[in-house]
């Protein structure tokens, strides 16, 4: 018997492919049959899919309408404003990876992927028209990385402030400030569409529903009766109706109640609807996290002389929110996909624009191609959200302590 310290790590067995197949795929008659059936099934479906993707599908509809699908009817002469915002964003991401990624392996790999992606796009036909901008994105990522490497305290603050002022800058660039003749002519929200609109609805939904949801969760546990009743009433009312009916209310009923002459922008109405809806669900998720915090934490905080606000903001919420990260990410991914419902109230988000593309006389009947592409976009961004959240969980040590 060897001493405990002498135990070697288990042998990493590398069997021959044949041996592996015999061990895992053909170890009994039943499993052999199952394996053969599965291979046949995968082959049949896969070959059909591949044949369709590479020989039958008419991807011209996507190539022709790419700008429409990504940006909606945003005027082509003003698209540089979106690229400019993206350049700033790339710079910030490069900065942040260098500063908070601690120049670790993960951050480097992640950053390399981010740099490579626009370059790859630039090489393909998809990015042909905006090669300069795509290369610029990669360059800004690298530039941000190098400038962020000192990772000093001041730099951290500057970059943190940068993250706070980027959204307003983006919105100002997007919407514009001057009449048609100026440098930044106003682009009305009726021209915002496609992936851009989907993103805006999602991000606004997440950013605003998060604080609202946290407040509602705290309110539901409050000892003040009116606050508690209000929170419960709000949560149960909103959770009791489908999102589509809230969107219909916002688009159809609200204008009838408003005094004549006053109109609220319909994109903003959709944003408000989505935010209010999401907040109710988020409140319940956060409440789950709050309930998981042992009473001892409250009592200890009390004993330390912290008041109620300090207890919540310094002790309870940080722990509770960390616990519910997986649920919140799930909710945000669901929210991202739920924004597709705005297509039903006439907004041209990515699904709405897909429907209009399908109505172009030149591309009638290409549902499969268009919806496949839209699904791919949804998958890419949902998976990206999920991946970033996993990294966040690892760095916060969720489930480890």
């Amino acid at each position: 018997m060897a001493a405990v310290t002498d135990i070697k790590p288990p042998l990493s067995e590398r069997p021959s492919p044949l041996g592996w197949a015999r061990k895992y795929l053909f170890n009994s008659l039943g499993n052999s049959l199952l394996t053969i059936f599965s291979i046949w099934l995968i082959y049949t479906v896969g070959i059909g899919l591949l044949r369709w993707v590479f020989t039958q599908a008419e991807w011209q509809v996507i190539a022709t309408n790419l700008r429409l699908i990504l940006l909606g009817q945003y005027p082509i002469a003003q698209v540089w404003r979106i690229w400019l915002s993206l350049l700033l964003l790339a710079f910030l991401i490069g900065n942040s990876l260098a500063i908070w990624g601690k120049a670790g392996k993960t951050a480097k790999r992640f950053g390399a992927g981010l740099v490579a992606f626009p370059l790859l796009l630039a090489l393909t036909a998809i990015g042909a028209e905006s090669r300069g901008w795509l290369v610029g994105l990669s360059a800004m990522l690298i530039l941000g990385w190098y400038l962020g490497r000192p990772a000093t305290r001041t730099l951290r603050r500057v970059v943190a402030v940068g993250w706070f002022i980027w959204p307003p800058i983006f919105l100002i660039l997007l919407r514009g400030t001057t009449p048609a003749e100026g440098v930044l002519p106003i682009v009305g929200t009726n021209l915002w569409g496609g992936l851009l609109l989907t993103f805006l609805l999602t991000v606004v939904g997440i950013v605003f529903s998060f604080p609202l949801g946290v407040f509602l969760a705290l309110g539901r546990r409050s000892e003040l009766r009116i606050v508690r009743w209000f929170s419960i009433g709000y949560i149960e009312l909103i959770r009791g109706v489908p999102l589509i009916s809230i969107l219909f209310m916002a688009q159809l009923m609200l204008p009838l109640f408003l005094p004549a002459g006053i109109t609220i922008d319909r994109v903003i109405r959709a944003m408000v609807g989505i935010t209010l809806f999401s907040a109710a669900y988020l409140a319940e998720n956060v409440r789950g996290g709050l309930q998981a915090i042992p009473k001892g934490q409250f009592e200890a905080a009390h004993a330390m002389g912290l008041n109620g606000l300090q207890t919540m903001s310094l002790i309870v919420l940080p722990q509770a929110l960390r616990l519910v990260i997986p649920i919140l990410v799930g909710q945000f991914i669901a929210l991202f996909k739920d924004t597709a419902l705005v297509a039903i109230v006439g907004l041209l988000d990515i699904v709405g624009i897909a429907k209009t593309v399908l109505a172009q006389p030149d591309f009638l009947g290409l549902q499969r191609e268009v919806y496949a592409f839209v699904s791919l976009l949804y998958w890419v961004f949902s998976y990206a959200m999920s991946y970033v959240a996993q990294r966040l969980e690892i760095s916060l040590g969720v489930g480890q302590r």
Partner: protein
Amino acid sequence: MSRKIFSVFGLLIVASMVLAACGGGTPAAGTERIVETVIVEVPVAGDAAPLPPPAGYGATLAAVQARGVLICGVNSQVPGFGYIDADGNFSGIDVDYCRALAAAIFGDSTKVEFRPVTAAERFTALQSGEIDVLSRNTTWSTVRDTELGGNFTATTFYDGQGMMVRAGEGITTLADLAGGTICVQTGTTTELNLADVMAAAGIAYTPAVFEDADSTFAAYAEERCDAVTTDKSGLVSRRTVLEDPSAHVILDVTMSKEPLGPMVRHGDDQWFDIAQWTVFALISAEEFGVTSANVDAAKANPSNPEVARLLGNEGDLGLKLGLSNDWAYNIIAQVGNYEEVYNRSLGPDTPTYIPRGLNSLYTEGGLLYAPPFR
């Protein structure tokens, strides 16, 4: 009630002015004298109405002019009628009507903001003032003209519900469909018409309903139903994209009248007139052979007095609508006449070709007939 009486008086006075201006005979000597005094007053008083107009009269035009842009509710998903092309521009016959209206109001057909509205929200959007006019392949019907608070101005496209089946299955009449399944889009008059027609004929069938046109026709293409029904305009364009268009026939039945046209809110007759006479200007221009190409020549040298009045050389028809006198000239110069608008979206050179049929001028056996411009 009293407002209605005022407007009747107003109309009478305007009518008598028009009659007098044209030199038409007046029925009684006593009235003639009054008419003459009115004529003297017209150039002095300008467009000041002798009687106060009803509330809401002119409000829409004033709001649109103050805003500087017309907001037009359109469809974004119907090939040939309202869709967005690859450059991001709205196209289609319903969309071009909006451009014509903008040209009439502003002299600039680009001063229009298109707002895609769905079937469910279109009437609310019109009532609440979200849109100034609804031009979205909407069928003129009693309920919509009354209870829904809107007025249809004129028909821009005469459509009718048809039925498409697979050739070679021996279906030639509706009765052959007894016991079969029919694909239909839900929430439309199409669904209701189908139920009415089949009930009247005593034919039992199973409806397979779908939320939008795409899934309706996809189900038909997958042979999940024996027939598919929608307006004939839709059937024609949908048939062109089926795998083998010749394997499908459109039955020789018309199950409904579907006059499609722009709709405005109740309560502003001036706006109604403008929206209506924009359609008539398009139709008249085709009748007189005035096109966007020859409109300048026609204005310089009008072929007949009505063309001169239409283009604003004579009379002040535009002013009576509350617009400039070259309103119709602007429509024709910037958007074209009805034929040009039609051919751009539904003509023989387009994938969505629909023969003119009922949508020909009355002189060519169709139903398009514009009242005289005088």
